[in-house]
């Protein structure tokens, strides 16, 4: 079993399993905050999947997309917290 086989058949399924588990929390989450946190974690694990996938396909350009995805996740969390707090203030 080569390294690429190990990555493809062991590591990627573990990551996909964890994405599915976070997605359960995203569906279930009792409050909006839980959903925002789950969305952030989905994107963060997605960055890990992108990095492993770039090893498997030997394409380093995918890491640029990982960088942009990290940026968007942070912006999303900040915007969600800002507007949720504002909505609560006006009530």
């Amino acid at each position, binding site marked *: 079993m080569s*390294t690429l086989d*190990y*990555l493809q058949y*062991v*590591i990627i399924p*573990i*990551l996909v*399993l*964890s*994405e599915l*588990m*976070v997605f*359960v*929390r995203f569906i279930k989450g009792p*409050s*909006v*905050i*839980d959903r*925002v*946190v*789950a969305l*952030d*974690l989905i994107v*963060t*694990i997605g*960055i*890990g999947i992108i*990095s*492993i996938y*770039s*090893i498997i396909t030997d394409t*380093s350009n995918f*890491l*640029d997309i*990982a*960088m942009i995805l*990290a*940026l968007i*996740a*942070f912006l999303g*969390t*900040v915007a*969600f*917290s*800002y507007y*949720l*707090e504002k909505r*609560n*203030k006006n009530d």
Partner: protein
Amino acid sequence: MIDFFIILLSTAGALFSLLAAIGIIRMPDTYLRISVNTKAATLGVGLMLASAAIFFQDFAVTTRVQAIIIFILLTAPVGAHLIGRTSYFTGNRLWKGSVIDDLKGKYNIKSHELQSENIDDESKKRHSERTDQ
């Protein structure tokens, strides 16, 4: 040797990501979930990115990976603090097993400002000073 390091780092990263997912599904409280998200996921993704840097052994890729890791390390605590603060304001309750709530009574609910003393005590003190004069 390189393959060994790639396998080691990627396995550790995947296991930490799995731990973060288990934590976010099993933790009883929003604040504990935020804590899991910040710590375990950051370490897991950092390790997986490091395995990519070792695989390519290219200066451009290593710089990119370092930029992503530093960015995640900088932004994860900031985002967690913001979302936790919002969660406290929107009235999410702590888990019943939590022992201490340090912020209780210290946030001004109207203006969302943090104060070092309890707001009720302070207003009482002002009131007593006024009555003394």
